[in-house]
């Protein structure tokens, strides 16, 4: 299946016939099989599908945390390992993964002290001029923008779950990554918190316009956030369809009342169900 969307210049993400198998022999499970995906720079792409469809595996491949068994993964034309070395990838995991002994501010500024040679490596990677993310952002300002202005000097343990996850998102944005990969970052939060975090994520993203790969199992979250929703199916993990969501931005709360929003939701749900039933058959 081909999950491509129209391409101009070097795509931010490119997966070519990617295969990933866990285990050996009869115990082997194919987490991803023959996956093609091309994501142009600056797009917000969600991966959705039932558990076992390989969406998290795909994300880990892009983040350089795993290697494909077959095929090729490219981030702005280089391998994920090179992209990590140039600090082009920002990761927001499922849990906030903050360091409990550092204040919020120190947590989000720590990445600046790590891998200092990354800037030079980054400049050497193709079409850097167009991506133009070089200046160190003011982390305080970013935190204030994310509603953490009062929490700058607090420890993570003193924050609510939603605030911690916001800090984790700010930490990732602070890298000014070319690709932001997010692995179900809101799945542990209650619905109100989740919606307000979606708002803030969109606010930050509107400003920085980095490419986002967002793994979720919530249909409305995927439709609300994304330019493209990539529907995946399990056994073996694969992409069945990618749906472009043509809704105007910014997408505020008003969106929930609109018919077109629900039509997209229904479309994604229907595709998911179809993938599921074909799997059962």
């Amino acid at each position, binding site marked *: 299946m081909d999950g491509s969307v129209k391409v101009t210049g070097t795509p931010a993400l490119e997966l070519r016939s990617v295969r990933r198998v866990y285990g050996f022999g009869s115990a082997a499970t194919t987490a991803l099989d023959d996956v093609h995906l091309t994501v142009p720079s600056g797009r917000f792409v969600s991966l959705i599908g039932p558990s076992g469809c390989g969406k998290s595996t795909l994300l880990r491949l892009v983040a350089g945390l795993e290697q494909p068994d077959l095929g090729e993964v490219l981030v702005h034309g280089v391998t994920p390992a090179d992209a990590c070395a140039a600090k082009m990838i920002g990761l927001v995991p499922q849990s906030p993964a903050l*360091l*409990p002994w550092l204040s919020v501010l120190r947590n989000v500024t720590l990445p600046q002290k*790590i891998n200092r040679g990354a800037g030079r490596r980054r400049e050497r990677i193709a079409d850097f001029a167009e991506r133009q993310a070089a200046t160190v952002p003011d982390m305080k300002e970013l935190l204030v923008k994310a*509603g953490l202005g009062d929490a700058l*000097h607090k420890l993570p343990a003193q924050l*609510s779950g*939603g605030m911690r996850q916001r800090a984790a998102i700010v930490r990732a944005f602070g890298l000014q990554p070319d690709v932001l990969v997010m692995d179900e970052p809101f799945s542990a939060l209650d619905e109100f918190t989740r919606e*307000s975090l979606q708002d803030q994520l969109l606010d930050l993203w509107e400003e920085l316009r980095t490419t986002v790969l967002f793994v979720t199992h919530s249909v409305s979250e995927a439709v609300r956030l994304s330019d493209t929703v990539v529907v995946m199916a399990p056994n073996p993990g694969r992409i069945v369809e990618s749906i472009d969501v043509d809704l105007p931005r910014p997408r505020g709360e008003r969106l929930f009342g609109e018919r077109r929003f629900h039509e997209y939701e229904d479309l994604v749900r229907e595709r998911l169900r179809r993938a599921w039933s074909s799997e059962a058959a």
Partner: protein
Amino acid sequence: MTVADERTTAPVAKTPPPVEPSRFSLKHPRSRIAWIRPAVWLPLVVMLVLLGGLWHWGAEQLPYLLPPLSDVGGSLSDELGYYVHNALVTLGEATAGLGMGFVGAFVLAVLTSELPLVRRAVMPIAVVLNVTPLVAVAPALVVAFGFGPMPKLIITGLICFFPILINTATGLRSVPQQVLQVYRTMDASRVELLWHVRVPHALPYLFAALRIVFPLSIIGAVVAEMSASGSTGGLGTAISVASSMNQLPVVYASILVLAVMGVLLLLAVTVVERRVLYWHDSNQD
């Protein structure tokens, strides 16, 4: 910004170290005030009075086994200089041995957590060393190194070595996967990870070990002194000399001084622990 996020979810300590819970963000102003309340201190006082009475009664019944408390106290106050001198000798041996054990164990913990090859080579030996009763090794070391401080430092160091090694290695390797993944995508070097993530993460584990090891260091020093009786000094020597001459008050006074020393050391660890783990807390302001 949002109402929804102002909920105060109770902060849950994520990974409690094996012995002591993390103190990162806990303030404890109440624990000091609490001691004013009789309900807190009275049970202990009553228990002490009861035990004292029991001792007194026992000393009257069995004068050859238990010295009267007044004699113990008398010996302490009459020869305070003697006890202080010997206590300092023992304390010096204990802390020096502990320091050696600490440095060795910490370095080895870092090496074993970074290099699986070293871990596989060293850990089995460390475990064997730990299950060997080191007390039994003391006489052999005295034969080898004489009556000087050397065998005492070695015994103390060895006794302190294992808990620090195991706890620190555990702490260094128990950083949550998702934290490691975040820093791996920034291509953090091993040294950066160690310095910024692993070592701070291991600190509560290290302090849990220190709480065990500080009292152990005194045991190590005393045992070594006893095996090398007739040596330079120390409370262990004082005890074995006094008991051979049947001076029970001196024996018990020495034991009392050792116990007080143990408590003081434990207190010192607690104070340092609060400082060090509080440092992360306070340094932000």
